[in-house]
């Protein structure tokens, strides 16, 4: 696949997850749960949170595994042999992302798997942090697209 096609495919995948995530986030913000027990009592809210977290993970994968290499290839940046940290640092220099924010989103994602059982307040705080991270990731994708258009 040519670099331009790879980039188009990556952007399409990012857009498909972003679109669903933006809608789900808007729905959450319209009436967010305020505690873990309140959330657990509302099946529709639980489904909404599941959708946000699932799309957050899928969007992160799409960016990390496809958009990052496709962007570097389209800019003719040598990256095939580079570890992820070098790719991230290069993209930060090019103005596409902030490495600390990216690593923070990775941390949020890695923590989702085993989250504070029997500690509802911490579980809820971690959930809110994940939702905030999802908002940040959506914003990143939007600015990434804008930046590519100006390259």
């Amino acid at each position, binding site marked *: 696949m040519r670099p331009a096609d790879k980039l188009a495919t990556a952007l399409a995948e990012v857009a498909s997850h972003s679109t669903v995530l933006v809608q789900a986030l808007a729905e959450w913000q319209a009436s967010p749960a305020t505690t873990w027990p309140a959330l657990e009592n509302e099946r529709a809210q639980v489904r909404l949170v599941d959708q946000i977290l699932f799309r957050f993970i899928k969007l992160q994968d799409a960016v990390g595994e496809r958009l990052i290499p496709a962007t570097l290839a389209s800019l003719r940046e040598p990256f095939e042999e580079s570890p992820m940290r070098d790719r991230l640092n290069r993209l930060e220099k090019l103005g596409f992302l902030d490495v600390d924010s990216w690593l*923070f989103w990775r*941390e949020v994602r*890695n923590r989702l798997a*085993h989250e504070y059982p029997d500690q509802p*307040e*911490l579980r809820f*705080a971690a959930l809110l*942090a994940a939702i905030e991270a999802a908002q940040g990731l959506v914003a990143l994708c939007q600015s990434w697209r804008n930046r590519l258009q100006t390259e």
Partner: protein
Amino acid sequence: MRLQPKEITAVTQAAQHAFIPGTGVFLFGSRVDDAKRGGDIDLLVELPASLPAEEWVRRRSRFVTRLYRLLDEQRIDVVMTAQDQPDARSVVARAKREGIKLVQV
């Protein structure tokens, strides 16, 4: 204990970045066993006092994010507890029993 000096330095820097004075960080799990190989880095963070939930989660994220920055992303498990709160979790008891102190902030 199976941590490189570089890893111990990173844990120290990340703890100073994320936690208040009086916080202790201990290594436990497979990395305290010299006979094993590889494995997650399991850390117990003992805060001098409990924190509101949002602050608790925020500081934990700040700690791990800084470790990712210094050591690259890898499997790091952090268990947090507070000295002024009873904590009956078995993982905390185990970590306290076998833990090796790496940092005192």
